[in-house]
């Protein structure tokens, strides 16, 4: 027991050492923590209720009363950005984790079973991958009906093939490893091999991809919201807010800018973290 | 060849003096080399023997300064090639030396050769890098080199890709590449470890023949004592980053003096009756990141005394100055017996 704790402590302190060596990754992590906390603590931090209409304070420039200004019905944009974080970041996390979970399982089994199972699955994935993802997502979202939940579903579905391909590629490599051949010599079933060997060795690039995808999913949800397929009014969602602010861009720059900045910064944060994790998990850089 | 007296430095193709190198890491530094002194004179064949962690590969790489300079620190000592201090040279100057004055062959020829370029082209590129001759002349020279490697069909091999050739053939290509500019020193880092034993013999014989022809000295790095005994005139034994014994091969192998060398040789299956337990050296190699300030072999040595708390110097034996040992006890004994 003590050995396990000691080994865990050593590995986590090493993890922080690696993290400290890369300032960009630390910045990314910092951004993410900041944005997530502000979204989670929106009820505490937001000075106003995001849905309250105040027609007397319409389209006001940023000021001490309204840090990010107000929109065309007088709602405080700062509060809406904070609450919007819950929607946008929530969507990002859901999409990335669900898509990677489902995609990894399908990909691993496809890789292990091989032959015609693999062929059928991969051809289906090829079909999905051949359509530009934005177009496919929009089409799916439109077919399902405009709502944030349907947008989430559409984005998730379209992301799954990437994970299937990634996981399958990893599986094909792991299948040739000596320790898998060793497992075969003791009569291990394919399920055992996937469970014990494939999944845990395939994870590093999948983790990296998932982290990067959170940022991408946020962007995609914002894109859908921008064209009206995602969150519907009056829900505060960054993409929808940017879209609504289009009409006011010239004179009331703050309307689209702040939600847009929120999208930008959050996506950068996840990208930096994802890149950093890829470098950390790269076995060629392993220093004992 | 009576090599390693303190001879004139310009006769020494390679001279490493008390080299200490460390690699900074998380929480400290790995002391990879802790006092390596070795010399290779022109035309000699010298062996460098050690196990993993002994620092022999670091030595090999440092012979051509192949380790990126921001990952290590030289804390003491020098490396000279034909008198030139290579630690002081710029990268550009090093590149001029690599291939022309010093060359190297590695254990895995597959990774050392460019897999997407035909073999002949690779050799020509090396030649043209260091000699200003025409391409046609370089091609002729390459074909001649391949023939000298006892390759029966040089034109076919010239036009092949590395993956089309066998391991032994690739190693011959490596040797051809290495000798193409007739260097003064060839560093061979475990060149035959990955080869079959019959191919190993051919490759080693080829190396020796070529080296004799061009007057190239060879520094052969290996863990295989038997190869050293057959191939090298002198041998250096390394342990925990330092040379612990050196001398003529037959002296070191027939009469090893350092306890580590003795333990190493005693543990070889050749030296016991089949089925009987092999003699092992107790304990483990010290952690190079936490090297104690005493004799690095002390914790595994059968003969420890108070004096071993000081790091031993590599000193010649009184009875045989060409045989050097880094052990206080052995030195003292030898001195007493010589009187």
């Amino acid at each position, binding site marked *: 027991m003590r050995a396990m704790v000691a080994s865990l402590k050593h590995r986590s302190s090493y993890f922080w050492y690696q993290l400290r060596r890369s300032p960009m990754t630390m910045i990314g992590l910092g951004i993410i923590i900041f944005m997530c906390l502000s979204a989670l603590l929106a009820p505490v931090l937001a000075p106003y209720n995001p849905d309250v209409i105040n027609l007397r304070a319409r389209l006001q420039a940023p000021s001490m009363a309204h840090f990010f200004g107000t929109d065309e019905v007088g709602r405080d944009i700062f509060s809406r950005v904070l609450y919007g974080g819950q929607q946008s970041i929530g969507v990002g996390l859901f999409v990335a984790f669900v898509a990677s979970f489902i995609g990894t399982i399908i990909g691993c089994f496809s890789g292990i079973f091989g032959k015609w199972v693999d062929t059928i699955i991969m051809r289906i994935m090829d079909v999905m991958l051949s359509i530009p993802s934005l177009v496919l997502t929009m089409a799916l979202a439109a077919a399902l009906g405009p709502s944030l939940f349907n947008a989430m579903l559409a984005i998730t579905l379209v992301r799954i093939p990437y994970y299937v391909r990634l996981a399958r590629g990893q599986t094909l490599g792991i299948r040739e490893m000596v320790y898998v051949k060793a497992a075969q*010599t*003791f009569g291990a*079933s394919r399920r055992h091999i996937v469970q014990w060997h494939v999944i845990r060795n395939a994870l590093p690039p999948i983790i990296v991809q998932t982290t990067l995808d959170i940022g991408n999913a946020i962007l995609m949800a914002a894109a859908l919201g921008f064209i009206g397929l995602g969150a519907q009014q009056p829900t505060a969602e960054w993409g929808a807010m940017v879209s609504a602010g289009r009409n006011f861009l010239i004179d009331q720059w703050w309307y689209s800018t702040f939600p847009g900045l929120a999208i930008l910064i959050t996506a950068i944060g996840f990208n930096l973290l994802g890149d950093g994790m890829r470098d950390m998990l790269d076995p060629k850089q392993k220093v004992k | 060849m009576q090599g390693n007296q303190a001879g004139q430095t310009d006769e020494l193709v390679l001279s490493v003096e008390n080299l200490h190198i460390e690699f900074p890491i998380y929480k400290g530094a790995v002391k990879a080399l802790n006092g390596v002194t070795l010399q290779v004179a022109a035309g000699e064949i010298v062996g460098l023997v050690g196990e993993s962690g002994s620092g022999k590969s670091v030595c090999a790489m440092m012979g051509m300064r192949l380790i990126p300079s921001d990952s290590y620190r030289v804390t003491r000592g020098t490396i000279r090639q034909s008198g030139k201090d290579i630690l002081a040279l710029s990268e550009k100057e090093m590149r001029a030396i690599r291939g022309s004055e010093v060359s190297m062959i590695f254990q895995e020829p597959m990774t050392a050769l460019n897999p997407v370029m035909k073999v002949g082209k690779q050799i020509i590129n090396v030649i043209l890098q260091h000699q200003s001759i025409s391409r046609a002349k370089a091609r002729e020279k390459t074909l001649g080199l391949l023939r000298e490697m006892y390759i029966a069909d040089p034109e076919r091999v010239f036009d092949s890709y590395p993956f089309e050739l066998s391991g032994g053939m690739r190693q011959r290509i490596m040797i051809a590449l290495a000798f193409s500019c007739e260097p003064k020193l060839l560093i061979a880092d475990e060149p035959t470890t990955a080869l079959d034993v*019959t191919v190993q013999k051919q490759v080693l014989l080829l190396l020796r023949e070529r080296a004799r022809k061009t007057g190239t000295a060879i520094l052969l790095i290996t863990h295989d004592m038997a*190869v050293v005994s*057959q191939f090298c005139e002198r041998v250096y034994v390394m342990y925990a980053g330092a040379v612990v014994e050196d001398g003529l091969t037959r002296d070191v192998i027939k009469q090893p003096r350092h306890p580590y060398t003795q333990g190493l040789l005693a543990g070889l299956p050749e030296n016991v009756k089949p*089925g009987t337990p092999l003699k092992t050296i107790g304990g483990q190699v010290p952690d190079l990141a936490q090297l104690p300030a005493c004799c690095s072999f002390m914790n595994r040595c059968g003969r420890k005394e108070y004096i071993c708390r000081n790091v031993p110097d590599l000193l010649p034996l009184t009875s045989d100055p060409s045989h050097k040992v880094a052990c206080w006890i052995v030195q003292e004994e030898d001195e007493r017996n010589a009187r």
Partner: protein
Amino acid sequence: MPDNRLVSLNDVHVHFPVQKNWLGQVKSIAHVLNGIDLHASAGETLGIVGESGCGKSTLAQVLMGLLPPTRGKVSWHTASAKPNIQIVFQDPQSSLDPRLPVWKVITEPIHVQGGHSRAQLRKIAGDLAVQVGLREEYMDRYPHEFSGGQRQRIAIARALAPNPDIIVLDEPTSALDISVQAQILNLLNDLQKARNLSYILISHNVSVIKHMSKRMAVMYLGQIVELGPTAGVLQKPAHPYTELLLEAVPDMTGSFTMNGPVDLPELPGNRHLPRGCFFYDRCRYRDETGCHLAQPLRSLDAEQKIRWVRCYKNIYENSIRAESTETSV
């Protein structure tokens, strides 16, 4: 001679199609094993020597049941008539899953068969670790936290977990330092005595084979060219290939120079097998009379039938040898 044979291979051939044309018809075949006759008995070590291309890795796979023979039979003479055979691979780094804690690595073979709880498995792992010279407390660590020699011990513990009758040792010490090799070989010998294990030791290192095995076989191009008691084969090789191999082994006890011809024809590929003796191209004793015929494995001793060679010349009787390298017993 008590016949406590555990496994016999009879005329085992293994062929793979390597190239198929666009119609799916096979264009060329790799003939990896071309008639192997072997057996292994309890409590003894059978050494197998050969160079790359001789088929020894494929032989290991056939023994492990990973590859069915294209022709011929593998028969098991164990009590249950089912194979209870385990394998220790050459590279301890790649043969252990780097992301599994060591106790899981060791007990995987029995976990797969089912019937043990997690706590039981941990206990078994601990016991096996002690038997191979590792400390019980290290069972939660990961393979990369161990040295090469320790990892090979882990691999040996894993092989011991299902209480096998035979262990195939595929170059068990080739990737290890020589001081570690000594420890591992001692461990293997101790385990063999304690458990009456049978080993099939595949190695290119002749001194290891000499140290560990009572009987040895020499393989060339998928065939066994010589088979017999180790001492006999090494001191008086009866096949020209064995002789060539032994001459190439650098010898520390003999003279300190290396002489011999530098050029030698390369090993022929296994796509197109030679018609007569497989070793014809490289044999220094070849003649135009008998060598064009396929050579069967002949017995050199009519009564005991323990010494076999695939060459009708029987060179050691006629003492035609180029340069002798005496390997002392």
